[in-house]
């Protein structure tokens, strides 16, 4: 309770910039949490090319767990299949997965970049207050001055507190997304070569 109250006082002392900063922080961390949960779920996917070929031959859509199975399910869900067009359909199905992989990562990084700017905004307004107090009361009234300085320092601190872990999380998520994408691409390439060989076989027959 005491910790909550002191946190509340901390926020109040930061001035009006604290509210957008808090909203931004909530948004950022909600996205980070969502993305991490998604990644944890997706990483359980163990769809190897061999298994995928089996599914393809049986025309049985796999259980959708991650990008690979999603691509495969989408591919198998297409109404018309012909060996000649399959390669392209597969390409389209793989391409579909890209946005979902990268979803939110850019937003997280952008928010992490904006947070220190908001902190800076708070600092500037705090300094404006401080100088306005000096302009009115001279340098004698240290207590009134301290309010502005406090606001200035607290917002910068909060901006950095939000931004540094946010940036860190953003980069981790980006690396994970890239790893997933690479996995997806190599999986797609394996399926692709199989489809192509089938297409060639179909053409030659």
């Amino acid at each position, binding site marked *: 309770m005491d910790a909550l109250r002191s946190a509340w006082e901390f926020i109040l002392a930061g001035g009006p910039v604290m509210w957008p900063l808090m909203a931004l922080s909530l948004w950022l961390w909600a996205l980070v949490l969502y993305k991490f949960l998604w990644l944890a779920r997706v990483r359980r996917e163990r769809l190897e090319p061999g298994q995928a070929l089996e599914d393809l031959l049986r025309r049985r859509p796999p259980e959708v767990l991650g990008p690979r199975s999603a691509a495969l399910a989408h591919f198998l869900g*297409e109404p018309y299949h012909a060996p000649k067009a399959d390669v392209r359909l597969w390409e389209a199905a793989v391409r579909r997965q890209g946005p979902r992989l990268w979803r939110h990562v850019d937003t997280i990084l*952008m928010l992490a970049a904006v947070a220190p700017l908001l902190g800076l905004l708070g600092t500037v307004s705090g300094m404006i207050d401080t100088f*306005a107090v000096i*302009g009115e009361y*001279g340098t004698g009234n240290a207590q009134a001055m301290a309010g502005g300085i406090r606001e200035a320092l607290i917002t910068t601190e909060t901006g950095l507190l939000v931004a540094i872990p946010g940036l860190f999380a953003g980069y981790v998520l980006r690396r994970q997304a890239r790893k997933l994408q690479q996995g997806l691409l190599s999986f797609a390439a394996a399926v692709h070569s199989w489809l192509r060989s089938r297409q060639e076989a179909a053409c030659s027959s």
Partner: protein
Amino acid sequence: MGGRAWVLAAVLALGLCAPAQAADFNQAAKQTAQDRSQAQAEMSRAKQDIAQERAAMQAKLKALQESLAREKKALAQAREDLAAVSRRRAELSRQLAETSGDLKELAGHVRAAARELLAMAERSPVTAEDPGRLEALRAYLNKSRFPGLTDIEKLVNLYFGEITAGGQIARRQGALVNQEGQDVQADLVRLGGFTTLYRVNGQVGLATLGPASGRLLAAGGELPWGLSGDINAYLDRQTDAAPLDISGGAALKQLSRRETLWEQILSGGPLVWPILAVGLAALLLILERLWFFRRVRANTDEMMTHVAELVGKGDFAGALDEADKQKGRPTSNVLTAGLALRDQPSEVIDNGLSEAMLRELPRLERFLTALKVLAAVAPLLGLLGTVTGMINTFQVITVFGTGDPRLMAGGISEALITTQLGLAVAIPILVASALLGRRAQRLAGDMEEKAVALSAALIQARR
């Protein structure tokens, strides 16, 4: 004395004349002897007189000398007395100086105490209940008036009164000068020596004391958000928590001096306008983009499924109609371009599709670069405004020196406003441009995906 000289002169004259009168010598001799004895007798008488006179004179001299000696003695005595008296006088005047110094010090203390209490009373809301005490206190400051014991007692009582009142919460009806400068009767609650809360016709606020008049003045300016509710609740005795101005009026003064946001922004100088223009331009661009993305948003998956179905059946006209339903949207445009080339070889179709996509891309990404530029320019303009403001401030310093920090600080405070405004404008633009950019990317990706799907469907249909 004069008589004797005459006698002598007469004798000599007779002697000289004697030879000439030899004839009558005997007689003359007789006469002479007679004269002589007469003269001798006169002489002895004169001598006797002289001796008598001398004795008298000497006696007088002696008396005078005696008197002189007496007088001298008296003088010496008097001198001694004078010295003693003046010593005593010096002693007494020293004592007087000492005593009156103490007295002056006492009066000084009393005046200083009265001045202190006056300074306190001029700010204390307690004075409003007893406006006469300001006059009473000012009377103490009159230098020619000497504070007596009763005055001192009165001052002490005033002090104790202030102390007692400082611990009280006093509710009463009283006069108040409201924000329009009119005298009104108000419900007043004085909270110790800090603040007075008032309520007139449902309007609540904090009141300060007019230092000269000793009357309550409603504090100017708008109350901070939520404060009037608190005051109302306290006046209705619903809560024990009341807002206080513990700074003794300084906070209320600042409240009345608070500028509106717009005034504050305008005080930033001429560079406020370009920043606002940048903000406005960015706002228009963002609205245009939002409107555009809203317009082109459509369920392309469903459309693509239908189109692929129709293409698979060989119903190209139906597929074109289906794609035309979303006319104007980028994916639909690409599909239409692809379907128009359905009889061409697959390479031509691919090229046609990518060409159509290239045609669509600028439409999707329009203004996004401009938004990024605006987001970058706004803080720079703010910085420029700050530097300009600082230059003005330093010019003030070259004229007036750094003696008064107020002159300088006010300028710096105003100079920083443009930086604040620049940042405040840039941050939303930054966020919006990033979000819009991602939406454009998603649309472009969707377009590409559908193009590939269409080319696959066309290849299939040619089977």
